[in-house]
């Protein structure tokens, strides 16, 4: 009994802010700070969405599209690259293998500023700052994806199958694309999901690299709006509605793909 009470209290702590976000997204501007924050007062979600997507020539739709491009394309590229390297690290033995793997793992500890600040200088010399590439290119490198892929290749691709295919005369890349990658597919979905979320949520890279509003991802656009909200209370509500809209797709993806993130978390826990 007491166990369930404690669990329920924490469920409240985790869910109530999200509930508040959903409820507030349906409120009128004037009711935002004056009515009970955790309950409805009128239902104006459609009007609010119209206001959100109409503000500033519909810039928010552009931001959502940008997020989808950064996260969708970046995570796809990251997954393909990680799967090749993870597979090779798992299934081929060569000198320096464990050294390469520890460098990849160790890179998780490097502070974002150590990477992003010099990257900004290099990119500005290469005239890549304030382009899609500035956010996309660094996103395709996912050390955590390599780590996961190596574990998935180890556990889901039997060495006997690879050897049988070799005897049949198949080349290594053919074996990888036609056999190994398919066997790793559920694991690669996990790598993709985690990569997608990491890029969708990234903050520091856009902060440094992007100046034109047209290139912002949704979360970074919200930060920019939040900065204006102090002066313009109308924007305050747009920030809340925009937060709701920018978060809903991720939550839907997580609810639909439970199997995959659970696999990722379980493996992430193993050392």
């Amino acid at each position: 009994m007491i166990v369930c009470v404690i669990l329920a209290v924490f469920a409240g702590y985790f869910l109530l802010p999200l509930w508040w976000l959903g409820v507030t997204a349906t409120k009128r501007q004037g009711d935002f700070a004056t009515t009970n924050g955790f309950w409805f007062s009128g239902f104006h979600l459609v009007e609010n969405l119209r206001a959100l997507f109409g503000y500033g020539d519909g810039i928010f739709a552009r931001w959502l599209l940008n997020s989808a491009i950064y996260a969708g394309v970046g995570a796809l590229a990251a997954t393909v690259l990680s799967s090749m390297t993870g597979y090779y690290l798992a299934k081929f033995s060569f000198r320096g293998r464990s050294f390469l793997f520890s460098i990849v793992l160790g890179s998780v500890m490097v502070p974002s500023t150590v990477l992003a600040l010099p990257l900004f200088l290099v990119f500005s010399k290469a005239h890549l700052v304030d382009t899609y590439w500035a956010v996309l290119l660094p996103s395709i490198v996912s050390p955590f994806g390599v780590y996961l892929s190596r574990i998935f290749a180890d556990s889901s691709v039997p060495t006997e199958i690879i050897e049988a295919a070799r005897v049949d005369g198949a080349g290594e890349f053919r074996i990888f694309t036609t056999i190994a990658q398919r066997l790793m597919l559920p694991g690669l979905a996990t790598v993709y999901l985690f990569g997608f979320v990491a890029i969708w949520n990234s903050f520091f890279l856009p902060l440094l690299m992007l100046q034109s509003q047209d290139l912002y991802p949704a979360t970074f656009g919200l930060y920019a709006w939040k900065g204006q909200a102090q002066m313009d209370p109308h924007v305050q509500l747009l920030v809340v509605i925009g937060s709701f809209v920018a978060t809903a797709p991720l939550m839907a993806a997580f609810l639909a793909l439970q199997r995959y993130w659970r696999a990722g978390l379980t493996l992430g826990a193993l050392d």
Partner: protein
Amino acid sequence: MAERSFRRQRGRLVGLGFLSPFFVPFVLFYIGPVVYAAVQSTEVTQRVGGIFGTEVTRFGGVTQYAAVLTSGDFWSSLSRVVLLAAVQVPVMGAVALLLALLLDSPRVKLGRFFRLAYFLPFAVPGVVAAIMWGTLLDPNTSPIYQAGLHVDFLGGSLVLPSIGNVASWTFAGSNAIIFLAALKAVPPQLFEAARIDGAGDLRIAWSIKIPLVRPTIIFTGILNMIGVLQLITEPMIFRTITSEVTSGYTPNMLAYNAASTNQYQYAAAVSVTLAVITFAASFGFLRLLQRRSEG
């Protein structure tokens, strides 16, 4: 003989083909920047010939590091994240462990619902989590404040715990799910033997379950600590709401701030110092725990 060296050659090409698509961008966008930052942090830029003279960059040894280490701003920003890491990481770890142990007990109903509820904040972008909590805690917009709890969570000494709360809210649940997965991997025979010997739930949790998932607890603890030392998103958002959060509130914000006023070398020195401290803290923490478990 010729056949064998041909095969070895081909094996190398295959390895290159599999590894270079990841490692080339990895070197370009990960290793390269780190090296560049390290080099930059040893340089100084000076103007030669008065205010309108040309800028000259030259080797300056530890000049930038001396400037970082003697700067009060650096130490106060560092002390904030260290304090936060020292309090928030263990507290969140303990809460996550408690939740995992409770979820692991067989009598719990609705386990699936709780697991989902706990995990959901992980899917919320850091910017959104900070906007949400910022709005919920700001006295001007807070429903909690309006309900009669007149505490300004974004004022004075409460800002730092409020930032810690955002981080805890985001990651406590996913940590609990990680611990739960580790607990489920423990063979149940281990508990049954203890139960037959008369051990209660608490005793089993303390003496069997927790020691078995210890490596997982340490691993996630270190990752959380690294995250807190590098904190930037949450305080940057809070800065738009409260003046308590200064522009150099955390070391990463300090570095960003220096960079945005073109003090790149100083920014690089701040970043490298933070990286070294992060490495030292991670390994120091690991060594300490290892020694304790041996002794």
